[in-house]
């Protein structure tokens, strides 16, 4: 039984009810997701992946709009600091995430719903782990709205 299936047994919401949107950068995190798939590691079935060229091009408005349209959680995954294909795109993403995390709390949204993290092309295991953990945390929350 996969890690996700184990977690699902003890959770309060069915996976079908949950919507997670993950923006993955083309160069690192998307390759990391590929690696997780290739290694047959568990990934939450409710994860919808959007491949973007760089985490730094994910507009904060897009994250807010994704939440508005009913996503339970949004992930933005980037290259590790210093490893950005465009040198500093992930620092732009980090500054955006820093402000966005504080903004959503002020707007009354549980900050658990937004996740910014780093996944390299080699980190299939980390991709699997953080997405499963994110889904498990979101299942403990009521539907957004």
């Amino acid at each position, binding site marked *: 039984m996969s890690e996700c299936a184990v977690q699902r047994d003890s959770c309060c919401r069915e996976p079908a009810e949950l919507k997670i949107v993950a923006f993955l950068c083309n160069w690192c995190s998307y390759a990391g997701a590929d690696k997780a798939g290739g290694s047959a590691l568990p990934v939450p079935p409710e994860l919808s992946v959007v491949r973007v060229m760089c985490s730094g091009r994910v507009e*904060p408005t897009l994250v807010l709009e994704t939440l508005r349209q009913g996503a339970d959680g949004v992930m933005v995954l980037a290259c590790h600091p210093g490893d950005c294909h465009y040198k500093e795109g992930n620092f732009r993403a980090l500054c955006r995430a820093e*402000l966005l995390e504080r903004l959503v709390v002020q707007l009354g949204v549980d900050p658990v719903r937004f996740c910014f993290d780093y996944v390299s092309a080699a980190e299939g295991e980390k991709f699997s782990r953080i997405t499963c953990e994110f889904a498990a945390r979101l299942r403990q929350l009521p539907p957004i709205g």
Partner: protein
Amino acid sequence: MATDKPKLAMYWAAACGGCEISLANMHEAILELDRDFDFVFCPCFLDTKKKDLEAMPDGSIRLTLFNGSLRTEENLEMARLLRKKSQLLVAFGSCAVSGGVPALANQRSRDELLSRVYLEAPGTVNPDRLFPRVLSQVPEGELTLPEFLDRIPSLKDAVPVEYLMPGCPPEPERILAVLRLVASGEALPDPGTVLGCSATRAVCDECTREKRDQAAPALVRSSEALPEPGWCLVEQGVPCLGMATKGGCGALCPAVQMPCSGCYGPLDPDGDAGGAGIAALSGAVAAPVDHGAGEAQLVARSRATVAAVADPLGTFYRYTLSDCLIGERDQEVVK
């Protein structure tokens, strides 16, 4: 005296009066207003009452400039009444367009707001815990007050409006241009158009401060900044929202060392002021230089560059919280 001039009305809901002052700031051009319009209703300038308005036929007012936010049931009632009486209803000023400063109160519930103001605020002495009531019985009879709404909506979300004219306040020359257009009888822009500002140019485009193409080492608090005159405020770390904000004001605030606070709203018509502001300022600070630093150090240094934005909501939605993309959901976290 009855005239065949088109009728003009201006109303303040929950407003500071600045919008009316901006109209008066047209100076001698206000004579044009008198020449071209029959100014029929404006509680700030004219001794006209609600009953005068009610007596007018529906749709008889050519143009109504509605300013202020919708804080009470009375504001809402006047918005509905003026909608009925007007051919062209303009959400005038940032409060009517997107909530304005009063809409920052949307962060809190009605009970929290009333309790803060009537019980907890420093200097408030209210041992009998008296709150304003919609209905009060006194020996002389009944006294009524309008109900306090749960949240402030933008005018367009309460009644249909023809145009939006943002600004805190809209600039006098822009007001004059709108009045002249309506008076001229020429074809008007499509309903829903945002008047008095640029659809494609940001405040930055109008700002004359020198851009040296430098990234700020970190953002600073506006109140603690002593920016060098003539040099772009953002490049000096002052959180100026000129990049993310519709132009049309002529960049008046940066011209006097004040960062743009975003009163014309986000440049993108489908945009969100918070998202636009965060994107703009996050792109203005320098990325940390590697030099063999560890990941944790780089992350900490990068986060520190935007730490000076202590209140992201108040900074980015100062005039636009009613239009916030996720502003209307139930509160999940206790602040």
